[in-house]
């Protein structure tokens, strides 16, 4: 077996996630991105906040509206594309990353977004999620995690805590939950972040970084389901508790949290992971400085393990990992460009017909009078 170094393909050097998408000079507002469809989520649903944030964030990208595509699967959050006046597809359960992969590979000039939920992305679509992440297709995946199945009316999900009593688990659920950030890091995702539906500022900043990232960006959004799992994220939302509950990840900053930064993260030599200590008990130099750009995902993974798998009392929030790696779609297009002998990939059709005639006439031929 042989391998072909991708570097010899001449893939364009690293660019931003939206660099090849046509920009607009027209001023845009959130209204431009709002479709005429009536929004039909339950009152109080966290999805409203995310929709509003996305609608008001999209103008900041400065991209032509017709070059933005939102793809979703099935679930409450997957209604999202209907409410955005862009191109979009509300597809089938779990498969949005596959459709987005086809779109992103076919068209460099599109900004491709996937909207999915914890059931859609991690249960029925788990396979597609990890493969999109390892391939690093240029798309941004918004994973709305409410830790419950909403659209099917309240069964436990792959992120529900063990023992959860739901309609399908009257004696408590038995499954150990996924930690979506750990999973994405394990799949060697190049951009992995977590944010909260109700924190518009943080959500928007993460969306901006995710869109700017060239490759698959996974953004887990904690999102409250007021009907079937209300209060799942109260600890990190309530003004009284959130200082102790949120471990903020800020690039280049020491990781401290709690009231007056009383807690900090340090390396745990016993486990090889990281642990929470009282800031006062350690040297400032020992406090972990957040580095999402570290090519090794090990520390990011260790930090992700500080997320409670049961009732959520603490959770790291922010960008865990943000590294550069050639995207699948750039490489695939470049292979086609190299093969067509035209860096733009657009050889003319007449030439193509002539080459087709030559192709089908290849091999050993013979002529009959």
């Amino acid at each position, binding site marked *: 077996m042989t391998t072909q170094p991708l570097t010899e393909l001449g893939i364009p050097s690293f660019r931003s996630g939206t660099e090849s998408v046509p920009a607009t000079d027209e001023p845009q507002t959130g209204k431009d991105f709002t479709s005429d469809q009536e929004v039909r989520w339950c009152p109080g649903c966290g999805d409203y906040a995310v929709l509003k944030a996305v609608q008001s964030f999209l103008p900041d990208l400065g991209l032509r509206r*017709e070059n933005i595509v939102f793809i979703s699967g099935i679930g409450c959050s997957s209604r999202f594309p209907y409410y955005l006046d862009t191109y979009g597809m509300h597809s089938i359960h779990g498969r949005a990353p596959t459709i987005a992969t086809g779109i992103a590979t076919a068209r460099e000039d599109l900004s491709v977004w996937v909207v999915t939920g914890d059931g859609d992305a991690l249960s029925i679509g788990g396979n597609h999620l990890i493969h999109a992440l390892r391939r690093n297709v240029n798309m941004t995946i918004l994973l709305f995690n409410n830790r419950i199945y909403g659209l099917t009316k309240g069964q436990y999900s792959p992120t529900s805590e063990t023992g959860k009593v739901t309609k399908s688990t009257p004696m408590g659920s038995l499954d150990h939950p996924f930690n979506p950030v750990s999973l994405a890091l394990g799949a060697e995702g190049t951009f992995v972040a977590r944010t909260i539906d109700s924190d518009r500022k943080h959500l928007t900043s993460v969306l901006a970084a995710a869109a700017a990232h060239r490759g698959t960006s996974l953004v887990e959004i904690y999102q409250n389901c007021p009907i079937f799992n209300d209060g799942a994220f109260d600890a990190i939302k309530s003004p009284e508790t959130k200082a102790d509950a949120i471990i903020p990840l800020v690039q280049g900053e020491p990781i401290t949290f709690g009231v007056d930064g009383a807690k900090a993260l340090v390396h745990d030599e016993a486990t090889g992971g990281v642990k929470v200590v009282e800031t006062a008990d350690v040297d400032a130099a020992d406090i972990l400085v957040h580095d999402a750009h570290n090519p090794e995902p090990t520390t990011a993974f260790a930090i992700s393990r500080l997320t409670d798998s049961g009732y959520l009392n603490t959770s790291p929030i922010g960008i865990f990992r943000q590294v550069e790696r050639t995207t699948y779609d750039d490489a695939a297009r470049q292979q086609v460009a190299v093969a067509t002998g035209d860096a733009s990939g657009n050889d003319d059709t007449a030439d193509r017909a002539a080459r087709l005639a030559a192709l089908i006439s290849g091999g050993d031929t013979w002529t009959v009078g």
Partner: protein
Amino acid sequence: MVAPEKQVKQLDRVIIRFAGDSGDGMQLTGDRFTQETAVFGNDLVTLPNFPAEIRAPQGTLPGVSSFQVHFADHDILTAGDAPDVLVAMNPAALRANLGDLTPGATIIVDTHDFTARNLTKAGYQANPLEDESLADFVVHTVDLTGMTVEAVKEFGLSRKDASRAKNMFALGLLSWMYGRPTETTVDFVSKRFAKVPAIRDANITAFKSGWYFGETTEAFAVRYEIKPATMPSGTYRNITGNLALSYGLIAGGVQAGLPVFLGSYPITPASDILHELSKHKGFGVTTFQAEDEIAGVGAAIGASFAGQLGVTTTSGPGVSLKSEAIGLAIMTELPLVVVDVQRGGPSTGLPTKTEQADLLQAMFGRNGEAPLPIVAPRSPGDCFDAAVEAVRIAITYRTPVMLLSDGYLANGSEPWRIPSLDELPAIDPAFATETNHGEGDDAEFWPYLRDEATLARPWAIPGTPGLEHRLGGLEKGDGHGNISYDPANHDFMVRTRQAKVDRVADSLPPLEVDDPSGEAKVLVLGWGSTYGPIGAGVRRVRKAGYHVAQAHLRHLNPFPKDLGEVLKRYDKVLVPEMNLGQLSLLLRAEYLVDVVGYNEVRGLPLKATQLAHVIADLVGQAEDTTVELGIWGQPSQKEDV
């Protein structure tokens, strides 16, 4: 090479089967003999037959791999029912294939492997070369392996490597026997082993040694001549179904002016299409080897939404997995070509064997009322035209199209008259660029406003300003395409999707019926790869002096508009299929015609002889007479079929 001074016998056709262990290179040997034969100008049909295991236990019956080639001085339709010559490289190959021979057939045996151990492995109690069990056949016992090792010893290969060239020795011998041109094989070996001169030279030497052996040995007193066939004028090449289908997909993309996007997951016997298309990125072809079958079709749907020609290739089990996504393509009304290279089922079934049992899956295998057009090729070369036709329908009607090939077509080959590109249909993607509803400031784009003639909806691709819209799997409101739960709308849309598929029939030519005398009372109707055996069976019955008509369906959904009328013209309609009567069921349901099925699911093509008898029985019933086929009912009559 010098022409031998031996007796030369004229034959009109020969069926040769090369059989050996799956590691013996029988597919390659058969393929090379086929290429030589094609270049010589005979008509030919091939039938490769190999186990699903890459290397089944050596010397055992399950490990036997074979390649049958039927070639003639006239046009032929099948790979032949009974080999005239069997080349058996070991006891298992002899035992596994002996039952297909008729008395008088020639057997060439490599004696080298006829050891006690190998005989036992093959289930022989005694050496068949030493008792009377082969008395009905003309047996040539030759130590092919021993002579090969001797011939190539100058190249210093290990005994194992040296003996591997025995297939080339056998090929050389058979090439001499049938006067095949040798240049293509020498060129092929030179290129294939260019980097390993010792192996290259050993193979060429073994090949030539086989030829010289035939020329000099007294064991083979006769060589044969099969004159080139008279075929319609044109330039020909030999082609397998999977290769022709791949070229057809590329041609469809070129005709439509669209890049082809193949999303696929490896599966036997369809993988060669993925392999082939991945070589042709120069035509703007993108090949995406997905994580699973669903991702393959999902990505293809995404590419179609983005304005490319989405294609996914698979076999029956893969279609099962893709069903939900195909339903999405039906609902979103996006072009998509789904290639199903059918194999034996259900479940994993018989991965390397052929069957036609996915027709009803293609027709109905989705939730809800989910119609799609179905197209089937009839021969390896016809896979090209069928693929172009599938692309035409998919793009013109904005619909997934199922292209039903099968394992026999995929791996079998035949001479193919290379078409001129101007014979191909023009295919216009006709992307929407303008709003289509309302005026002025109220102008909107309605993604489900339809073309009156085709009922196709507009295909507006991302990047087109002002036409932003959302598709999805939820029911669409007529015209505007927004989600609609309205009962009357759903009823209307279900009927409209069906009507759109039915409209494809408007673009189809009338069904060609081959009824030379016009006096036939029996029509034989088939689809897919049974074309060859049915045609050969029909010819036999006609040669015996009876009337029978034949028609073959390229379009399984919708049927050609005149099919019902054609069926009613005949007293009896016979429908042979490699399934338990799937087309029969559709015909009965659609036309209330009492068709007679002939059904076999043996993983092998139908046999012309068997079909001739079935047709004859029916002709006898229809004409109230006794039909005597005479020699035309024998598998190995030495006459024209």
